[in-house]
């Protein structure tokens, strides 16, 4: 490209001087990234000619990314935005602000709101509320009516309205006949069926991982085998139906192994892991009975945590997702077994990935970015996930070695239920650009 063609009039914005990483295109290179009409217009290495072009930009058209990483906007396929129904804990607006602050440009919200997202009206409601917010919100509809596990929801209707997947997240579709029909039915629309894989008979009454820690504390255990059985069953159903199965928040060694084998066999199964399943272990709970450590599936033992890391390393686990689950301080300030399960994650995921996966040399930046961009984009059919010229200009700028301390008062999320408060992390989003618009910068 000749310098004379490159002018500020031709481009709306430039992100200059960063290291551009695109896992889909397979590169990491020092380059300037140009945006035009909300799309990626060019990625150019530095040169005297480009330098002359950069001088023609106005200051407010330039984002300086020197010493930073420039990556496709991060995608989180598992968040709870709590609206409608529990706006005290989170709203679509505050959830999107949290996403932008954490470096995410797109999220997929779960349908276990009140009312449930099991009809066109509720899908539409969420979509309307999400307009012009700081992140793209994709909607997962329910598999069954009212998430009761009894009758299929009007999945065709949901998809027509724009639902990108279906799930009864929070609950396992216990009846195998219904799950089989859901897989078969969803195949018509080519959407993934997301499963909260946890046999509900085995997990009934469980509060924390079943282990010596639960035995020691006298707290009811949630056994790993509940997840293993659920995953094996659904893989078997998926083998029969040839549908697309996505296992949510995988947390055990045996479940990871089951997915690994299924993939080898060619079954169309994908999976995601949450930071708390590759960072935390259940021996944390007895220290202070911190209710922010209560989550489903529960934080597990060292062996399971290491297996989740191994699954991330060898590619068995496709995505990193937060399972961002806001709960009010009032609800969480309770007895350990009475507090609701779940923790927020949108604003800590990136720092945890850097500190616990990249700094420990389990994943390269390119591998980590892949699991937070192009992999989820491909599985769920989202825009973005890549910086290929012509793609939507959803971009995250990462300060890779920024050291910071997690503080409750800094969360943009309406809820502060994070077990990582006080943690010292490395790596933070320095800027988030959504469709060519800067939605967060630090």
């Amino acid at each position, binding site marked *: 490209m000749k310098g004379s063609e490159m002018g500020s009039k031709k481009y709306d914005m430039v992100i200059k001087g960063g290291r551009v990483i695109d896992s889909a295109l397979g590169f990491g290179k020092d380059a300037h990234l140009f945006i035009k009409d909300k799309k990626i217009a060019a990625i150019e290495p530095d040169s005297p000619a480009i330098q002359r072009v950069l001088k023609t930009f106005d200051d407010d058209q330039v984002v300086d990314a020197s010493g930073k990483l420039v990556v496709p906007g991060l995608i989180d396929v598992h968040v709870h935005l709590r609206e409608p129904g529990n706006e005290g804990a989170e709203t679509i607006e505050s959830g999107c602000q949290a996403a932008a602050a954490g470096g995410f440009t797109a999220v997929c919200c779960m349908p276990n709101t009140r009312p449930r997202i099991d009809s066109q009206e509720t899908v539409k409601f969420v979509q309307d509320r999400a307009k012009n917010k700081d992140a793209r919100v994709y909607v997962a509809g329910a598999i069954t009516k009212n998430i009761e596990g009894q009758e299929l929801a009007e999945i065709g209707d949901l998809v027509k309205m724009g639902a990108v997947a279906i799930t009864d997240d929070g609950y396992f579709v216990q009846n195998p006949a219904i799950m089989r029909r859901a897989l078969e039915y969803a195949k018509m629309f080519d959407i993934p069926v997301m499963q909260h894989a946890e046999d509900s008979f085995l997990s009934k009454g469980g509060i924390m991982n079943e282990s010596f820690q639960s*035995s020691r*504390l006298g707290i009811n255990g949630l056994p790993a085998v509940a997840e293993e059985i659920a995953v094996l069953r659904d893989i078997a159903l998926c083998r029969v139906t040839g549908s697309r199965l996505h296992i949510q928040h995988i947390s055990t060694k045996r479940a990871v192994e089951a997915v690994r084998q299924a993939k080898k066999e060619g079954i169309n199964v994908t999976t995601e892991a949450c930071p708390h399943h590759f960072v935390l272990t259940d021996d944390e709970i007895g220290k*202070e*009975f911190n209710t922010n450590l209560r989550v489903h599936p529960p934080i597990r033992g060292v062996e399971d945590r290491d297996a989740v890391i191994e699954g991330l390393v060898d590619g068995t686990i496709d995505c990193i997702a937060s399972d961002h689950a806001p709960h009010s301080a009032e609800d969480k*300030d309770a007895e350990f*077994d009475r507090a609701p399960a779940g923790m927020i994650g949108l604003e800590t995921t990136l720092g945890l990935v850097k500190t616990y996966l990249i700094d420990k040399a389990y994943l390269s930046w390119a591998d980590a970015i892949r699991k937070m961009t192009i992999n989820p984009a491909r599985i769920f059919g989202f825009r973005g996930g890549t910086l290929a010229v012509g793609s939507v200009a959803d971009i995250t700028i990462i300060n890779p070695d920024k050291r910071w301390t997690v503080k409750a008062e800094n969360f943009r999320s309406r809820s502060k239920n994070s077990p990582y408060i006080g943690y010292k992390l490395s790596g933070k989003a320095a800027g988030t650009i959504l469709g060519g618009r800067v939605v967060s910068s630090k």
Partner: protein
Amino acid sequence: MSGLSSRHLLGLESVPREDISMILDATETFREVLDRTIKKLPTLRGITVLNLFYEPSTRTRISFELAEKRLSADTVNFTTSTSSVKKGESLRDTVQNIEAMKIDMAVVRHSSSGVPYFLTQCMDANIINAGDGAHEHPTQALLDMFTIRRKYKKLDGLRVVLVGDVMHSRVIRSNIWGLKTMGASVALCGPSTLLPYDVEKFDCDVYTNMDEALEGADVVNIMRIQLERQQAGLFPSQREYTNLFGMNKERLRHLNRNYTIMHPGPMNRGVEISSEVADSDNAVILDQVTNGQAVRMAVLYLLSGRKEEGQ
């Protein structure tokens, strides 16, 4: 005498040997008081103790209350079922309200593990755990240990078998930690469905055969079996439980000559323990009750007045 290493008694898992010895030694003194005509001491005059019972309890609550009164403390009882509290204010609010009434010490029982710890985070009073979920019941284990020590003049080297619902028993957990710290050899026995996950990590001998468990034991501490465990499908019938794990006269032959039979009460006679065994000379079940008062007096005495900076 230097004091205990903590200003609360939340459990025995992390209580050092010196502290347990100190409590048991102090218990001797208070136990003597209970044999006097006048059983009242001025030790806790001016101290207000709250008995916060979120779970139904008669024995433990009365035992604490008597211990408090015998030490001249002012006592106040807050008894409620958790279900009614659930509709109203949070645990933190309830507790802070009560503390605003200037409580010095609180004895707490709750069905959720960890509540005594929670209380240390929301009030300044000294906290004594009177049973939290299936986690710990430290004063019960201390009174069991005191009863054993009184008879054998030691705990070190004794073989103690804890029988019953190991999974759900806070009494067994506290006994495990306390007895092991004091050098006793601990065996656990119960149906495999009532043994907690990774039970071997408690580092005790584990049995599912009652006769084998009793072989060579000095002390057998038998736990009440709850009917609801059978309803939850954890064992097939009360009858079968009694056949497999009931303590009866026939099984006494496995024990050492100077054996001791214990039960924290309330007993299901004819279920986990036969009347013959419960009423025999070697049973110390009523001594446990008396000693329980003395242990609670000792704990109240040793913790009272201990402030934050003393930690």
